[in-house]
């Protein structure tokens, strides 16, 4: 009764009943792989909630203080206020440690879910027209997520993240012509400078989250407008979408997934230690510890820095230092290719049609092989971030490990790609043998210059959605 009156009160002022009915009636297809993007979204929600809590206790100041809190091994040690507030937050603030650990685990999950979601979208061809815009929005979100994660764990000014900041500074320096300017403007002078922690703080809690929130909103709005893509199956065509309505089924499942994601993150945050900065000590520019690795989503960059041979360009008194090639150029090419992929594929296949039916990976062997090869490359780079740990764990020379990873980085992608291609072909052959038709046969590439127009629209179907006979989902 109460909710009905409140709803009526609001509707008299906003007139939202029709909009609400349309919104709640929207149909979403049901497949487990469509939940991965949702997990990323819910991890972000947890990040914002736990992060807000942390901002009430963290102090991004580089003022030097002496620690006098409850963690004995650091008593009397000089450190920045930022590090001190992080240690105090961990030991002397009720729920501080669990919130900080949930926050850190949520960041790791956020980026992992984005990457797995990107893989799902790539391997099912969901980036094809009309979804190129959303693909670009998604890749931007990946880049911003990586930057924000790095900024976040560098705030604590501990020995490990401070070393990472020095590396970021040096990578910035390596940019030709503008590098020293960029580094000086960003850090307020030479490393470390008096301002970097407070600047990273503003970037981490305001600037990047604002852009991320806006882009997530755009990502969801575009998805709703275009309607989610679906796998082929009985009753599923390019001109319809079959699934569940938002209200009540899809909403309950989604909100339930949100609570479960949050629950898993709380379990990790409470039971699995992460980023124990009190063990690393405050940052000092003359110290470093062995086995220094960044968070997982930066691993590919660190691995690239380790594996790339010591080539530099020096001419006329100027130089392009070594880190530029793996850390700036290769990274730029990586994301450039990611951005360009929908357009590259459309050009190579000559396919400029709308696609609302997804591919199974086996239906596009070349795309799948290229994707697997690329994944293999970046996986090798990520594993290469742990060359020193590998060497000490297995008691082998680190030089040997580095050389092996260099070879692996060149050999693993073509081998993995080839295996993936053969697997796709084999699976296709088995499908044909069992009489399962290959859906969406690949359109033959057209002559260069001729574009296929989208096929003419059939007569519009009646607009009220009709329940389909209950049938097996794909």
């Amino acid at each position, binding site marked *: 009764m109460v909710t009905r009156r409140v709803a009526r009160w609001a509707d008299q002022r906003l007139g939202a009943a029709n909009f609400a009915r349309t919104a709640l009636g929207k149909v979403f297809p049901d497949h487990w792989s469509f939940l991965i993007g949702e997990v990323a979204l819910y991890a972000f929600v947890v990040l914002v909630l736990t992060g807000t809590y942390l901002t009430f206790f963290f102090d991004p100041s580089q003022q030097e203080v002496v620690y006098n809190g409850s963690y004995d091994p650091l008593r009397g040690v000089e450190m920045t206020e930022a590090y001190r507030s992080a240690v105090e937050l961990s030991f002397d603030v009720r729920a501080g440690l*669990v919130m900080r650990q949930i926050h850190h685990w949520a960041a790791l999950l956020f980026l992992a879910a984005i990457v797995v979601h990107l893989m799902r979208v790539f391997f099912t061809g969901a980036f094809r027209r009309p979804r190129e815009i959303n693909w670009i929005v998604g890749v931007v979100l990946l880049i911003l997520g990586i930057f924000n994660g790095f900024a976040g764990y560098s705030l604590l000014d501990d020995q490990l993240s401070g070393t990472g900041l*020095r*590396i970021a500074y040096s990578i910035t320096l390596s940019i030709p012509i503008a590098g020293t300017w960029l580094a000086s403007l960003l850090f307020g002078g030479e490393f470390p400078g008096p301002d970097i922690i407070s600047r990273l703080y503003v970037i981490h809690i305001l600037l990047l989250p604002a852009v991320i929130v806006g882009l997530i909103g755009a990502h969801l709005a575009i998805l709703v407008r275009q309607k989610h893509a679906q796998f082929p199956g009985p009753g599923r065509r390019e001109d319809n979408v079959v699934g569940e309505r938002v209200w*009540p089924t899809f909403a309950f499942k989604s909100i339930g997934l949100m609570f479960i994601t949050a629950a898993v993150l709380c*379990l990790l945050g*409470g039971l699995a230690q992460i980023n124990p900065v009190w063990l690393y000590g405050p940052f000092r520019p003359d110290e470093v510890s062995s086995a220094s690795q960044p968070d997982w989503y930066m691993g590919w960059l660190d691995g690239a820095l380790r594996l790339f041979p010591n080539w530099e360009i020096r001419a006329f008194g100027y130089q392009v230092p070594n880190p530029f090639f793996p850390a700036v150029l290769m990274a730029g090419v990586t994301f450039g290719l990611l951005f360009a992929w929908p357009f590259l594929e459309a050009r190579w296949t000559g396919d400029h049609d709308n696609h609302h039916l997804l591919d199974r990976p086996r239906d596009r062997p070349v795309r799948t092989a290229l994707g697997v090869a690329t994944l293999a490359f970046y996986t090798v780079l990520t594993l290469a971030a742990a060359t020193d740990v590998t060497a000490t764990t297995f008691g082998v020379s680190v030089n040997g490990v580095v050389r092996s990873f260099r070879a692996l980085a060149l050999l693993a992608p073509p081998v993995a790609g080839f295996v993936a291609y053969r697997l796709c072909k084999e699976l296709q052959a088995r499908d044909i043998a069992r009489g399962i038709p290959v859906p969406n046969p690949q359109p033959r590439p057209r002559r260069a210059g001729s574009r296929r127009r989208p096929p003419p629209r059939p007569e519009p179907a009646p607009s009220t959605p*009709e329940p389909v006979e209950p049938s097996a989902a794909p």
Partner: protein
Amino acid sequence: MTERPDETPEQREARRRRAVLGERWTAASFGVTIVASLGLGIVFWRGGQPQLEGLFLALALGGIGVALVVWATQFMPKQEIEEERKDLASTDEEVAEFQAEFERGEHILARRGLLVKMGGAAMAALLGALVFPIRSLGPRPGKGFKDTPFAKGVRLVTRDNKPIRADDLVTDGILTVFPEDHTRAADAPTVLIRPSGEIRPRPGREGWTPDGLVAYSKLCTHVGCPVGLYQSEEHLLLCPCHQSTFDVLDGARPVFGPAARPLPQLPLGIDDDGYLVAEGDFSGPTGAGFWDRDRD
């Protein structure tokens, strides 16, 4: 229970049982949330404990989550709804109408081509001017990028700002040193080594290693990590970040890894009181490379 036309009585009974079981699970899950929330309150009241906080939070949130998912999957009516995908692009009529409206305004402007161009120039100029506050973010990258506080006569000190004598180091000993009164200078950490092998000085640096001691910048020339690991038998300095390796006896020349330049060397001397001093700044800018590092 909703009617389903093509359902046998057994299937209907199975569905009813599933629904009842689902209801029980849902109620139990909500119950878990209630108990866990109470537990969380008690843990807080008693002073907090991270593992229990995480566990109870997980149970409280998970209870709601499981309840909602069970509710949705077990006893909500299963339907497959079909919705039409309308063509996303606007119809030709809609586009024509928009163009007509837009061109009304544009048509007026088009007769003032000069004003439009000046308006564009004005916006560009303003945006250009607004970039200038960015200049305040940091100083012009100047000599500081190539200098350190080391100079002729500056003593070497430990982290506690205590000066060092030549015989403070045993053979194969290594010490991290700084310019006097600058133990926090981030570009100046230095490794002082008494290697057991014979130092082969670079041309022009024959006097830089008194008493068999040699000093190099501790900052790796790759990306600036402190080169903290010394393999005394092979006389190799190893950087733990990306495994660049430098030969201490050969001017800290890089022999493995991604570093492409040797560690800058500090010329050493011994002052009248017997303490170690620098005889000048490093042989080159310390740390990672940059565009005009080799130019004056």
